[in-house]
């Protein structure tokens, strides 16, 4: 049985219309690999790479095939057999797996980013000489990274309800440090003591989903160590919360790891669910920042929230509950924005086409601002809003709340 219904839901297939783009094709070829009839050829690597891991096919599969796990497992096997490739090896193992080194590289980039012309506010786009690569808009790297601004402990304001660890994540650290500080202020203001473990590391999403399980496991263990003895681990990045929760599923090779990662998983909360499900804050009781009063807002579901963590009601409840905002649902709210982490690096042309559909959805709402809760999506939405010359601003949910 190969019904092929995934084709309707796959953002990549919708652009390419070829069978190798869609879950059914990838699943079939992976089966041949398992049978020993197909090799990890460069073409096969290309096919496995052309997946956003957005899980729309998984959510709609009549036979409940977990194609995301098929693709990631196949990528992992390929890394085992063929190695990681020079560039990924350099980035994953030399940079991302080493927090200090990663900080140094980011700082180096920060120092040279004045070379890139600014368009608007804090956005930069690639200078003309590499425009042939695409005229992509990047948010500016922060002057001072979050890691250099935070204190190890932020006591709760008023009586302490619990102690949580703040997992910052790379995008928040290097690009959106204010978002991290906003999260800390929000949590302490609601009676939560916030610890910021110094030795926390990258969540490893890009590494894990590329199939470099060895490096991912190293990062997972670092994070398990860093966040011991805390009631919860809270993050403002949908991809980070989802990845921390997925260590067990992907990386556990023995019972001990199963237990260790499972224990971490049970304590990880995305900030959206933490506000509603753990702190049990009533959305009406939250205060909207003055500058957003009277605005119309729409919500973009990050794949890592809506399908990886089934978080869709909580952010909507907050946006609908905030007095002074008008909420409009986007027609294709749960459509992937097209980013897919490193997918957008290798397939920026497809990313742009998928994002164009997202932009149509945003336009249809007539909203002033687009809100989401994943810095990865924010970076891509920002790029495409500018490319489409739209007036909408992109925000993280937390940025709206006092």
């Amino acid at each position, binding site marked *: *049985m190969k*019904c092929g219904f995934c084709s309707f839901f796959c953002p990549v297939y919708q652009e390419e*219309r070829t*069978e*190798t783009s869609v879950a059914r094709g990838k699943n*079939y*070829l992976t089966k041949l690999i398992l049978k020993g009839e*197909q090799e990890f050829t460069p*073409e096969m690597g290309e096919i496995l790479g052309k997946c956003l891991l957005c899980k729309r096919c998984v959510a709609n599969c009549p*036979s409940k095939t977990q194609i995301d796990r098929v693709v990631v497992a196949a990528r992992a096997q390929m890394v085992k057999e063929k190695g990681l490739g020079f560039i990924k090896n350099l980035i994953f193992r030399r940079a991302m797996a080493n927090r200090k080194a990663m900080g140094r590289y980011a700082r180096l980039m920060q120092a040279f980013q004045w070379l890139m012309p600014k368009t608007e506010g804090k956005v930069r786009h690639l200078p003309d000489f590499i425009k042939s690569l695409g005229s992509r808009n990047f948010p500016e790297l922060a002057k001072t990274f979050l890691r250099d601004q935070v204190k190890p402990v932020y006591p709760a304001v008023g009586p302490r309800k619990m102690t949580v660890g703040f997992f910052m994540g790379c995008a928040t650290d290097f690009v959106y440090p204010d978002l991290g500080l906003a999260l800390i202020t929000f949590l302490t203001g609601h009676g939560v003591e916030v610890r910021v473990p110094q030795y926390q590391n990258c969540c490893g999403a890009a590494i894990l989903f590329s199939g470099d399980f060895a490096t991912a496991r190293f990062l997972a263990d670092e994070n398990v160590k860093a966040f011991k003895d805390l009631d919860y681990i809270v993050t403002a990045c949908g991809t980070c919360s989802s990845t921390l929760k997925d260590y067990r599923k992907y990386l556990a090779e023995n019972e001990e790891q199963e237990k260790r990662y499972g224990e971490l998983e049970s304590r990880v909360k995305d900030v959206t669910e933490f506000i509603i499900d753990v702190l049990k804050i009533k959305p009406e009781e939250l205060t909207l920042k003055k500058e957003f009063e009277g605005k119309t807002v729409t919500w973009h579901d990050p794949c890592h929230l809506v399908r990886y963590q089934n978080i869709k009601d909580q952010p909507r409840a907050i946006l609908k509950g905030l007095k002074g905002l008008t909420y409009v649902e986007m027609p294709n709210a749960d459509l992937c924005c097209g980013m897919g982490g490193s997918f957008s690096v290798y397939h920026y042309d497809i990313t742009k086409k998928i994002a164009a559909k997202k932009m149509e959805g945003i336009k249809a709402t007539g909203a002033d601002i687009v809100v989401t809760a994943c810095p990865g999506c924010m970076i891509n939405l920002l790029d495409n809003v500018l490319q489409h010359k739209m007036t909408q601003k992109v925000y993280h949910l937390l940025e709206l709340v006092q």
Partner: protein
Amino acid sequence: MIKASLIGELQNIVGKENVLTSQEALRAYSYDGTTNWIREPDVVVFPTTAGQVSAVLKIANAEKIPVTPRGGGTNVSGGSVPWLGGIALVMTKMNQILKIDKENLTATVEPGVVLQDLTLRIAKDRLFFPPDPQSFLGATLGGIISENAGGPACVKYGVTKQYILGIEVVLPTGEIVSLGGRTLKNVVGYDLLHIFISAEGTLGVITRAELKLLPIPPAKKTIMAVYDDVAAAGESVYRVLENGVIPDKIELLDNWVINRIEEMMPIGLPKDAGAVLLFECDGIAEAVEKESEKIAETTRKYGAREVRIARDDDDANKYWMARKAGFAAVYGKTKTVFAEDVTVPRGRIPNLINKCKELATKYDVEIVVLGHAGDGNLHPAILTDVNNKDHYERSVKAMHEIIEAAVELGGVLSGEHGIGLEKQKFFNKVTNPSVVNMMKGVKSLLDPNNIMNPGKIWD
């Protein structure tokens, strides 16, 4: 194998990016919606215009290269599997809805348009295309026409052929012709249009179609009738119709399916029931109201132990979600499924159901009934495992007997899936040799070199 020089010619016609030859791509076009029919093409070609299709067919015809047209590849007959290799002609990039004519209630489409995309688009104009094959999420119009697809709504609305006014088709010689037209009535000579509908891509390549649409009915109502005996449910189907009500859908779920659905998504279906029938009426609100009452009355009279009328849309959706889940239930439960497509005259539904039960006992296999009872297209499914040789063989025997029984009851081998490869072994058995020869005559007239989807139907 195809000569390398020909690959270059194909690239010149459709562009380099629209010709695939890698081992991986060929493998990805080696299957369709079935489990076991697998054969690789030598090259995959994506045309984007009728002119390109014509140029490709001219080469294929001159070189006698097999050409297998393919849309979404969701068919369940093996029909789009390139059985003799050659060119897989994939129409998915010809996917434009060219025109929606609200005055004439028609739409002009390219063959690669996915049915669900069409449905969503024309719904904005309060229109719909009635044939509703359940593969609508992936099935393309070219394939739907070539297979003359049906679906649940056929009880009232009929099958695809009733909604095709005209097509543009490229013949194996490369000639582009238009058949039919844009009018409802058309008796200008032989009805050649309908030879291409259900030809399974063996006569030519459809490159455009004129579809007949209908306005979306303003009201709908869902009725569920519960039966102790599955054959009694079968009887209710024709009793309702003979009492003057034509619902747009009548679907049957048997006890096995009911229980799997309740395991997956409990919605309160009666687990001890032999079967339930789901009816849907559509039309003007007042008429729908009266018809549902009539259905309730008739089904009660003919053996329903309980009848529920859905309170509102949400309630109705629940039942139809369950019907949809039935499909997953069957396929999720076992390795291999023989999804039969036999169709009998409606009055014989109880006989066919009883025969299935008898065969299930005789061969000690699970035979599940979950189908479009309203048009006699019952889809009995045999659950088996291709790796369990003994069980598999018993299942094959049971399947043979189901088909024989259906034909004896005045039915047909396939209601909506087509023959393709899957039903070939029965085709000659149940078809009059003179009729087979007429078909072959038509084929050799239009496709003398036998390049179009060879190896299918009677071969």
